């Protein structure tokens, strides 16, 4: 299946500063891909290249199988910038204008404009688009992107100014769009939203993609298990057991949790039983998206592949 959007080793420099380096990924129909990274990591630059606003300094790529600068490719694209800007128009005229420059006209356009106004609760806003609140402007920008029923949506922090109810509505819309076979690529700092709706995540740091994969892949570091044990508190005589654990242990009430490499569970369970402890649970360790944001020495540039499984010393 041809990707809707493809980046192959794309780099971007402004004067002597490399903003993007060797960025490779693709977006396919029917998937939601989250784009994470701290401020200034290059997310907006990436989206701007895809939308034909910036010219890549190196590498190749395509939008709908065509050049990023081909306007006919953008006919099937809906783009919402981080800071939407409007002409001196009413909300209705702004949505109609967006449809017109996507090549729509006549009754079809009028019907789509009415639908978009209703869908994004903009029907009762008579004032000029530029005078709307930030949240209302963001809804209007989303309505402009949806009016032409695009195959690919590029959204730069689309819910940053929305209230929880509007965030919920946008989430439902994005899920419905995915159900209709559309591709969605969006950057966001709202990690819970990203975790909730995305099929895949790209993590960008200093212009490089340092991690990418499905949400379970990103949240479950390969080969690490968490054991939760009762009866062997850290401050008891048994603390020596935990001192041998490969990762720091954590005590919460009576329970102690410890991370161990997969494959060593039998060794550890026997040790715990022999010491008189009770195994409460054992399961794969889940990362949080927040922890992915924090820079670590383990983050190596990766194109497509998740980083290597962390190595652990075998306990004595």
């Amino acid at each position, binding site marked *: 299946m041809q990707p809707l959007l493809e980046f192959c080793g794309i780099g971007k420099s402004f004067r002597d500063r490399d903003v993007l380096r060797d960025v490779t990924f693709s977006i396919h129909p029917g998937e939601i891909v989250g784009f994470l990274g701290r401020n200034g990591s290059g997310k907006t630059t990436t989206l701007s290249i895809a939308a034909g*606003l910036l010219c890549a300094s190196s590498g190749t790529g395509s939008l709908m199988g065509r050049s990023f600068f081909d*306007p006919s490719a953008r006919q099937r*694209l809906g783009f919402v910038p*981080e800071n939407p*800007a*409007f002409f001196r128009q009413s909300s209705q005229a702004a949505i109609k*204008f967006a449809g017109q*420059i996507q*090549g729509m006209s006549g009754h079809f356009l009028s019907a789509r404009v009415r639908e978009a106004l209703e869908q994004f609760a903009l029907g009762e806003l008579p004032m000029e688009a530029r005078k709307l609140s930030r949240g209302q402007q963001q809804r209007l920008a989303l309505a402009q992107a949806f009016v032409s029923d695009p195959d690919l949506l590029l959204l730069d922090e689309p819910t940053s100014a929305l209230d929880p109810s509007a965030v919920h509505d946008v989430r439902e819309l994005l899920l419905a769009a995915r159900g209709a076979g559309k591709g969605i690529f969006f950057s966001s700092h709202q990690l819970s939203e990203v975790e909730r709706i995305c099929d895949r995540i790209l993590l960008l740091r200093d212009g490089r993609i340092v991690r990418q994969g499905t949400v379970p892949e990103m949240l479950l570091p390969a080969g690490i298990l968490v054991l939760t044990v009762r009866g062997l508190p850290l401050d008891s005589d048994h603390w020596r057991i935990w001192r041998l654990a490969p990762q720091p242990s954590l005590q919460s009430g009576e329970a102690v949790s410890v991370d161990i490499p997969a494959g060593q569970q039998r060794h550890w369970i026997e040790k715990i039983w022999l010491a008189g402890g009770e195994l409460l649970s054992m399961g794969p360790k889940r990362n949080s998206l927040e922890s992915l944001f924090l820079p670590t020495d383990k983050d190596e540039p990766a194109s497509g592949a998740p980083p290597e499984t962390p190595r652990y010393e075998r306990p004595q």
Partner: protein
Amino acid sequence: MRKVAAVTWAMLLHNRWQLLLLGAWPWLFLLLLQAGGAISPEDVVSLLHQECLYGLAMIAILASSAFGNELRSRRIVFVLSRAISRQQYLTALWLSAIVPGLVYVLSMLGAGVILGSSARLSTAAIVSLLMVLLVLMLWVGALGLMFSILLPGFLPWAAVSVAAPLIFYWSGPKPSLGSGMLLQSIMDWGLAQEHTQFPALASVSSTLLQACGLFLGAYFLFRRKDVCPSGD
């Protein structure tokens, strides 16, 4: 073409006060003159000369600030991320500077005919003057647009205000370079019959060709230019 018209219309409506002011300007001059009592034919000619120069300066300002304004306001991001080519966008920018010029010329025609009748100037003579002005506006508009793509901030306007007089001065005696001859014909335009004729077609054609060349130059600069609003 429909997309160009939609973008141009949005830009014009956005600057509607500018458009109204340019449309009203010649009529305000007419009212002021008529309030002053009897007008001599020399005053009318002088006024028309002045208004032609004001019109050219206005178009130079509008065209040289067009790109920068859209960039600063970030509206350019919205438009160029849609199914519109850079050429179409540039055409819309150029038209958004030229249409106010056209409104100004039409308004000058109405006011000029009224003034001209009191100075025994024929309508044909005024029309020929305004046609020359319109051709020069197309040229100055293209020059301003090219500089607005090339230079940041207020520099495009500064560049046009230096380059246009230099080009007029340099091309003045050369009919093949047109624009200087046309400006000269505006300044020579007067009460004598031989000065109210439409200038040589060669000058008009070469000025229009230059305008096309400048527009193509602007397109060449713009076709792969990074559109990067400040702050991103």
